[in-house]
């Protein structure tokens, strides 16, 4: 029998990790890593942070040097697009005309930026931020931009805003909801960051939509808001979220519902096909709906994060290598905005109670979020020690009460240690 072939579609962090982990786990067959971006696998988080600011170089973005792929016999096909998955013939069809056969297939297709459907988005100066190519354009444009409008106050938009301000531009943040980052953080953390951006000099318009992008001679000159204001702009960043790249899976007959639907082993309904990272919709006890792990009724989420990409890449590789174990990692996230570091452990969305530990006025605090009396997630601002404890606690039953969390004299590390033996 010829050695088995694992094909991985997507050269982002999840796809890269799958290939690297397969080799580390001793997989001896062929590994093909295919992605439509021309660059070898790179880190995405710095694109809206240090790389955009000019504080880190291209060299620092690569996940591994190019020699890594030859050394570990990973057949990297960068700049290649998969056009179809043939599930019966076990083949992938490529845009370049070739085919790749597979025994196991890992879909790490990621997500793409969600376009804003208003007139004027085609004007020069209206830009997304998702890929290295996007970041290179923005990095150069920020050298000359005077007035920047950021449409969408999620992680990316706010990180971009803080870099743009630091690079000397006037920044106006426009957000359709009343809570920046509201999809992922509590009201207290959202408020803190809103105020921080205002302190740094940004203008912030909440509850405000964009009616159209204004332009002259093919170039963007401003943004017209839904409440009729004209905000001048020579650079408009559109960052209103992403769309999971699930079309290939859907066309191959796999279930798609806000991403590619997988089970707790990250397998699709075809047991030889896995989906991981930004494109995967998976069951987890950390989901904001559904119920606790005790009852084994799990809600579903799709997460966009380094942690999720890396841990799911490892998990898929382990399944293929024959170590069957469900995916159960504690989610964590971070964001750098100005001199503020936000770290999140667990998923706080869906909490019904929250308590503050520390002092937002002093710029160091955590929000401990609970649902039905149980700790489900912690948002820490410049408070790494709390974040570390939170990750430990959430790996099992945290057994932490809101009263304990709010009491700064209560020793959280000792609490975590007392549970360590469980």
């Amino acid at each position, binding site marked *: 029998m010829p050695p088995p072939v694992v094909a991985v579609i997507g050269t982002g962090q999840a796809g890269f990790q799958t290939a690297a982990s397969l080799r580390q786990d001793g997989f001896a067959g062929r590994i093909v890593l295919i992605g439509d971006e021309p660059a070898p696998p790179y*880190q995405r*988080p*710095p694109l809206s942070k240090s790389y955009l600011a000019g504080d880190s170089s291209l*060299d*620092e973005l*690569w*996940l*591994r*040097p190019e*020699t*890594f792929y030859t*050394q570990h016999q990973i057949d990297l096909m960068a700049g290649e697009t998969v056009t179809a998955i043939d599930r019966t013939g076990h083949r992938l069809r490529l845009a370049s005309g070739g085919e790749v056969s597979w025994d196991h297939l890992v879909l790490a297709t990621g997500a793409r930026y969600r376009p804003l459907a208003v007139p004027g988005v085609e004007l020069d100066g209206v830009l997304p931020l998702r890929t290295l190519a996007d970041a290179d354009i923005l990095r150069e444009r920020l050298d000359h931009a005077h007035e920047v409008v950021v449409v969408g106050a999620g992680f990316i938009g706010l990180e971009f805003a803080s870099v743009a301000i630091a690079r000397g531009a006037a920044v106006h943040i426009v957000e359709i909801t009343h809570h920046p980052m509201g999809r992922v953080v509590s009201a207290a953390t959202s408020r803190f960051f809103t105020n921080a951006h205002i302190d740094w000099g940004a203008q912030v318009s909440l509850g405000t939509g964009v009616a159209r992008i204004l332009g002259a001679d093919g170039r963007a000159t401003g943004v017209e808001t839904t409440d009729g204001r004209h905000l001048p702009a020579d650079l408009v960043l559109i960052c209103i979220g992403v769309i999971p790249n699930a079309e290939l899976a859907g066309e191959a007959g796999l279930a798609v519902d806000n991403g590619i639907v997988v089970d707790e082993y990250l397998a699709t309904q075809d047991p030889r096909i896995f989906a991981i990272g930004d494109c995967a919709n998976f069951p987890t006890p950390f989901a904001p709906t559904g119920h606790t792990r005790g009852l084994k009724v799990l809600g579903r989420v799709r997460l966009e994060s*380094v*942690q999720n990409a*890396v841990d799911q890449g*490892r998990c898929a590789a382990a399944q293929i290598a024959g170590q069957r174990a469900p995916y159960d990692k504690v989610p*964590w996230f*971070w964001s*750098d905005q100005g001199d503020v570091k936000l*770290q999140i452990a667990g998923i706080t969305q869906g909490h019904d109670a929250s308590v503050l530990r520390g002092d937002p006025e002093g710029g160091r605090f955590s929000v401990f979020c609970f649902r039905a009396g149980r700790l489900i997630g912690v948002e820490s601002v410049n408070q*790494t*020690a709390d*974040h*570390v404890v939170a*990750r*430990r606690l959430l790996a099992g039953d945290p057994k932490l009460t809101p009263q304990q969390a709010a009491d700064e004299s209560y020793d959280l590390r000792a609490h975590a240690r007392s549970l360590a033996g469980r």
Partner: protein
Amino acid sequence: MPKITYVHPNGTREVLDVPVGTSVMRGAILNGIDGIVAECGGEMMCATCHVYVEEDQLGRTPTQSEDEKAMLEFTASERRPNSRLSCQLVVTDELDGLVVHLPETQV
């Protein structure tokens, strides 16, 4: 250029020229040294670039921040007094000749 020595758990030594301003972690990644994972890319969100600094060189290394101390709780291999996150060891001329030992595992 400062020389940094990476010692694998089996005793194999690799000596690299690492430019000033580059971290000991990045030096390893760019040169394809297995044994440093650096899953968060140097953001101090994980502890997968853990190294043990040669005992008698500890005094030469930059001071440990509170954040690094906190994150060292996540090392997959035993945390020791000479444990550091190599993303926080930014190479300077003073660090020329630094020897770091790679742990058995990073995950």
